[in-house]
């Protein structure tokens, strides 16, 4: 509803004419903190006019249109019923409009802001607030405190702290300007009387000794009078002032950010970086499942036996895999190429392992790859594929290799209860006290404060009366994994303080623990727990500060094998794990919702998974079926042409001879995984692979891990 002319007059008088070019432009009178138009009677708005404008706008016409005079536009104030933005909304109209005005001013639409103030009758803030702000920004310290009181900050804790903050800024600015005497005066007469903590006061007084302003700024972590320090002070003071009086900075943007965060938390397949086109205020954010890596784009089959573990290089351009075939392979990944034409060449095959290879670990700069085979650790030059040295300190299986976050060395753990710290070049630096558990995996937190180890105790003899009850149990596992007498070994998570090497927390669990990964923020650990004779297999997300289980992920199967999991995706939104049913499992980290069960690998377990650190839409898995699979989002044309089943098509296209049928590779040409150049090396790749498995399905038992041929007998051989 439009107001009558005299109302318009009074409303406009609030801000126009006199304020349109002032900065900040809210000199006008009433802080009528509400839509108070209805309370004003026609024609008696005198208290709100500022005199000069009344002449200009008064009686301009009866239709309420905007009049213009002296180059200034006048805006009719609009009176609306009620106090909310819409009839059925909870949003307070005044609050909303004031935030809009703030946003407009922030980006520089000064006139629009002023016009909106005029049209709505709401002002962003009162002159007192503006005055206060100006005092702080102009360093009018003496007036600042008085202005603060006028804003309604009452005596007591709040005012005390606010005064202290202001006096501190004043003190620092004097020091910065070299006015030592003035600074000393502030310290004695303003800061000290406020009775701050003695330490704090001492710290401040010691700044007197700073050699120059740069030194001062660095010591305080403060960017000086000409920097942003006054604006920061303003932000700090904000908390003592009612937010309805002085609106917190960028309040609208804060609310929009909260909406985005909420939408993101509901987006199960969320996998886009924050700075991305995929956010729009027009629609709720939701990530397309079709942009999620869930189809195989490559099958890497050069290993001649089960592939047990894998790790991406930090650059994401190489993948290291560890196999029962007593080799590790470094694969080169053409990350920049279109997935359809990308080749995965084995850059080096690292032989010279006497036993199966259980883990691989890249140094921080990717120049060294560590492998662990039984009790021996080997350092390899990842650029030449040559062995640098072997480390023989462990007396039993080395189960974990973890580089320190600064790259200065690495830590190994093993079933011999040893945790050993090594230099980057393999010199023994420190050996920890014998661990109570036989370590099956360990990781160092990225913040360099903790080491998280999991492992098992030795199996206790069964109680006498239970003898016989477990007969036959041991036969179950081909690897002899059955428990003697049916007893389950006790297992434990131990969280060590890295600096003292002392345990902070020790958590008892039932069921074998086979994998630890620590989140990028160093707050959480992801741990696989097998279900052998006990509760179902679970992956636990543990809060490292208190040892509590924050989330559990279930659905996969793990009873007797070493199965590993990992975090993945943007902001580590996903949890991935291998499984003994041959599938890859993916959960939404926050909610624990199982998102995908990806079939494709052949018979046996999927042993480990790893998300590419350089490509948030790619991960790899490795399996007993001797292959490594690369998973990516379905290519666009595959989606449009083949609809629901793009994976098969992609595989056929890529692999040539491969034929995908229910996750099994049919025999012909199976070792031939790539249509790359067929020199003598790659030719024998094909031969070796095919001879390894005969005509049966992948994972058949007829394989002979020793049937290596074609690569030559050196410790490593480059293939392409």
């Amino acid at each position, binding site marked *: 509803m439009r107001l009558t002319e005299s109302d318009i007059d009074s409303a406009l008088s609030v801000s126009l004419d006199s304020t349109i070019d002032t900065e900040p432009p809210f000199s006008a009178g009433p802080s009528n903190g509400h839509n108070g138009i209805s309370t004003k009677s026609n024609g008696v708005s005198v208290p709100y006019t500022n005199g000069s404008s009344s002449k200009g706008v008064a009686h301009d016409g009866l239709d309420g249109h905007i009049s213009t005079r002296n180059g200034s536009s006048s805006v009719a104030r609009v009176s609306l019923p009620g106090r909310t933005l819409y009839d059925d909304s909870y949003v307070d109209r005044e609050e909303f409009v004031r935030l809009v005005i703030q946003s407009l001013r922030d980006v520089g639409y000064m006139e629009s802001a002023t016009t909106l103030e005029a049209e709505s009758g709401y002002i962003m803030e009162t002159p007192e607030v503006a005055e206060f702000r100006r005092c702080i920004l102009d360093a009018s310290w003496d007036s600042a405190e008085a202005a603060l009181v006028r804003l309604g900050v009452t005596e007591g804790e709040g005012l005390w702290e606010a005064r202290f903050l202001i006096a501190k800024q004043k003190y620092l600015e004097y020091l910065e300007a070299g006015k030592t005497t003035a600074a000393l005066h502030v310290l004695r007469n303003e800061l000290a009387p406020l009775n701050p903590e003695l330490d704090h006061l001492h710290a401040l007084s010691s700044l007197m000794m700073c050699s120059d302003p740069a030194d001062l700024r660095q010591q305080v972590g403060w960017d000086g009078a000409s920097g942003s320090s006054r604006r920061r002070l303003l932000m700090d003071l904000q908390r003592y002032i009612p937010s309805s009086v002085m609106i917190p900075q960028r309040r609208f943007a804060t609310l929009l950010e909260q909406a985005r965060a909420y939408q993101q938390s509901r987006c199960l397949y969320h996998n886009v970086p924050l700075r991305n086109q995929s956010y729009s205020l027009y629609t709720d954010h939701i990530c397309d499942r079709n942009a999620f890596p869930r189809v195989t784009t490559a099958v890497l089959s050069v290993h001649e036996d089960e592939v047990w573990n894998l790790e991406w290089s930090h650059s994401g351009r190489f993948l290291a895999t560890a196999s029962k075939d007593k080799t590790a392979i470094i694969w080169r990944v053409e990350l920049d190429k279109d997935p359809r034409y990308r080749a995965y060449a084995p850059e080096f095959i690292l032989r010279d392992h006497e036993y199966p290879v259980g883990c691989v670990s890249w140094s921080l700069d990717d120049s060294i790859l560590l492998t662990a085979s039984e009790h021996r650790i080997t350092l390899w030059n990842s650029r030449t594929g040559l062995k640098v040295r072997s480390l023989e300190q462990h007396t039993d299986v080395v189960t974990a290799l973890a580089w320190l976050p600064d790259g200065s060395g690495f830590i190994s753990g093993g079933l011999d209860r040893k945790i050993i710290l090594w230099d980057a070049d393999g010199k023994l630096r420190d050996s920890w006290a014998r661990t109570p558990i036989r370590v099956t995996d360990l990781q160092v937190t990225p913040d360099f404060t903790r080491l998280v180890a999991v492992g098992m105790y*030795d199996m206790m003899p069964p109680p006498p009366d239970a003898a*016989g009850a*477990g*007969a036959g149990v*041991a036969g179950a596992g081909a690897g002899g994994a059955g428990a003697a007498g049916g007893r389950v070994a006790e297992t434990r998570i131990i969280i060590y303080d890295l600096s003292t090497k002392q345990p902070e927390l020790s958590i008892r669990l039932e069921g074998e623990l086979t994998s630890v990964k620590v989140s990028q923020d160093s707050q959480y650990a992801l741990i696989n727990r097998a279900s052998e004779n006990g509760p179902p297999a679970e992956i636990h997300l543990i809060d490292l500060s208190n040892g509590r289980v924050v989330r559990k992920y279930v659905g996969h199967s793990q009873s007797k094998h070493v199965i590993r999991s990992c975090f993945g995706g943007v902001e580590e939104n996903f949890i991935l794990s291998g499984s003994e049913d041959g599938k890859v499992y993916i959960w939404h980290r926050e909610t624990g919702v199982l998102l995908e069960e990806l079939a494709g690998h052949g018979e046996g377990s999927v042993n480990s998974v790893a998300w590419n650190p350089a490509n948030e839409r790619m991960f790899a898995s490795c399996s007993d079926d001797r292959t490594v699979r690369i998973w990516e989002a379905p290519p666009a044309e595959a989606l449009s042409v083949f609809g629901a089943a793009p994976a098969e098509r992609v595989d056929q296209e890529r692999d040539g001879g491969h034929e995908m049928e229910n996750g099994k590779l049919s025999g012909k040409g199976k070792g031939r995984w790539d249509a790359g150049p067929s020199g003598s090396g790659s030719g024998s790749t094909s031969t070796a692979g095919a001879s390894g498995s005969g005509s049966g399905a992948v994972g058949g038992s007829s394989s002979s891990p020793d049937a290596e041929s074609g690569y030559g007998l050196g410790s490593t051989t480059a293939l392409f």
Partner: protein
Amino acid sequence: MGMSYRRYLSGARIYGCCKCRTHLATIHSMISRAFNGQHGRAYLFDGVVNVIEGEPNDRQMTTGNHTVRDIYCVKCGQTLGWKYDYAYEPSQKYKEGKYILERNLLVDVQ
């Protein structure tokens, strides 16, 4: 199939593989010392760990016909003894599902 770690036992006496000392059984799960194997004296155990079982075949023993599987060390592949799958003689049924380790192929480990 799949990767698994070897088991470790604790107890008064632990028997390990003579070649690589991998833990196999404890005295607590021993049922009888009165057996004979190819290399002399052998022990019957209720349960053993860290062994791979071979294919089953029928074998005529002094106590009658049995279906047995040879068992090998999971680490070094050393043949260690056998497991009874099935006993044809009713009086020998108690051996089913149990393991023979030959004494001369074992060492004490601790």
